[in-house]
């Protein structure tokens, strides 16, 4: 599991690569800590290289969202493969985030 954070003007993109399963979740959670500091920006999770996500992986996204909302940040998710889209749809996550694609 690889995580990379890129900043472009007021958009911060977290690029996730590999399998975000229960074992990888704690490490990934640490790596995206910088996202918790942001205020009034757009946070984008780029999932085009993400192969799998477990429920504990989804909790990380939800954690970022819960933190960002009161601080005026927007969170969107892009590049989901069909399997991941299915998981997002089933868990009701695609209604929680500003944009899910």
């Amino acid at each position, binding site marked *: 599991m690889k995580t990379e954070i890129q900043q472009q003007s007021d958009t911060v993109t977290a690029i996730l690569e590999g399998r975000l399963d*229960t074992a990888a979740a704690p490490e990934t959670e640490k790596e995206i800590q910088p996202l918790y500091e942001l205020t009034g920006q757009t946070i984008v999770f780029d999932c085009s290289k993400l192969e799998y996500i*477990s*429920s*504990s992986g*989804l*909790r990380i996204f*939800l954690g970022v*969202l*819960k933190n960002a909302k009161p601080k005026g940040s927007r969170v969107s998710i892009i590049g989901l493969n069909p399997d991941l889209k299915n*998981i997002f*749809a*089933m*868990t*009701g*996550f695609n*209604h*929680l985030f500003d944009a899910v694609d």
Partner: protein
Amino acid sequence: MDSIIFLGLNGYAWITIATIAGIFVIMARTRIRAEVVFLGALTVLLVTGVVTEEEGMAGFGSEPVVVHAAFFVIIAALIHTGVLYWLSKNVLGTPKTQVGAMLRLMIPASVLSAMMNSVNIVALLIDAVKLWAHKLGVAPSKLLLPLSYAAAMGGMCTLLGNSSNLVIAGLYLKQTGETMNVFEPLVPGLILTVIGTAVVILLQRLIPERKSSEHTFETTSDYTVELLVPTDNPAVGCSVEEAGLYNVKGGSLVEIVRFDKEVIMPVPKTEWILGGDRLIYAGQINEILELKRTHGLAAADHHVWSINDIDTNRKMRTAYITFGSDLIGKSMTQCDFEQKNDVVLVAVARQGQRVDGQPREITLQAGDTLLLECPAKGESQLETNNRRSLTFFDSHFVPEIGSKTITSAAILLLMFIFSSFHVMPLMATTMLAAGLMLAFKCCRFDSVVKYIEWDILLILGATVVFSTAITKTGISDALAHNIIDIFGSNPYIILAVMCLIASVVSEFVSDVGAAAIFFPVMYGQAEMLGCNPMPFVMSLMLCVTFSYSSPIGSIQNMLVFGPGSFRFSDFARVGVWLHIVLLVAMLAVVNIMYPMYI
């Protein structure tokens, strides 16, 4: 094989012993269906040449098998036309005391069991007795145990009552060529039934009071309930506390199972809810089930996208797992029971105890009570489809009482008159009665095959063959000799010892099995000692049904085990005493009635 001799027995004999021992081990250790085990054992005997093809197949055409098959049709007709329903409704009444209630139940149950197969009588009366117990304000266990005992005792009185009676009469016919009268065991059976009923009533305080399992769902505060969060539930993304799903009225959230089977336990208040979560609550079932209405949760075996997709008319029904059920040893997630029947398992109760964990993952046992969410319609269809696995507490089967009720009752009476006066052999009489039931449309022509419990017939047929093998290979002779060598040649002592052994064995083995094994041994002993075989045959017939102390020894006990919420040891409390008293009484009565030497 004949030339291999070990401990005085040849190779064939040892194959037979190993095969019969194998049956017990396999039955005790595995969940392979009994008829498969018995047929497998029969195959071993055939392949190894212990029995010939003719001997191997003769069992299936023997009297006990044919009479049983005919009886299944007769019983189906009696149920279908409402004869049994009418009887169970009208005999019980409203007695004032516990003793009165027991007599009111045990006497008719014994009489009916003598007339028909005792197992059917228990099966039929269970529901009526439970309702009756509720009305009288006593625990169902207090009446279900006497019901089981009364049926087994009444069944002693005629050849038709207990299956083992027919098996022994069949073996006797084969051995001597003489047909036994249907009422041959009537006098000793009647005396023993009276004594036994008195013992049960005297010891009624020892019958445990067990809470009825269907009411435990309403009253006990400790059950686990599983509910699903549909995708569009507003709680998705909130913490369990925010959503009001943490501490709920009447219970608390103990576990969350995520869509990917990840388990959160214990659940912190701050844990978030995702769509597809399964929330496991412990507490009072009725209150927790309210969450379906108030919080948009669902009972479901598959994922639910929207609460609007759920049929809100579905209803809760309780059912218990019967002995020999296909569901034993499985959990709902491991089988397709829920999909096949469009039901969802919501909670499991086991003898008034809470079973920890996700209900749908629990490995089920015989006697477990299940709370199922069922479709609004098709109650009786659900019952018919699963009658081998589950028994529903709120049975919907109510037959109509009409002219056919009288017709089928008349056919039954006619059958009795015919068989008691030996107008025709028993086999012919019962087949005629079954045929008349069909001819007068007392039961449906097209479903005759469905009424017949083939597994029981296969087991009976195979059992008869084992008896042949035991005789043929010399096991019965050797055993008979050895016991005579040990206990001397006093026939009264031998008879007592044999009955003690046979009755103890039958506490753990079906009465039919014990009858088939012990018949050749005891008949052989009577011949060796130069005695009248009748006291041996009759005492064996009576004593193999003394299986009162364990739930597994008799089908009657197995049947009441679940509905009475009994524990395994409950049967021994009164059962051991009943066993001892009846054994002593039986030896006395039989020896007075049947002289040892003629």
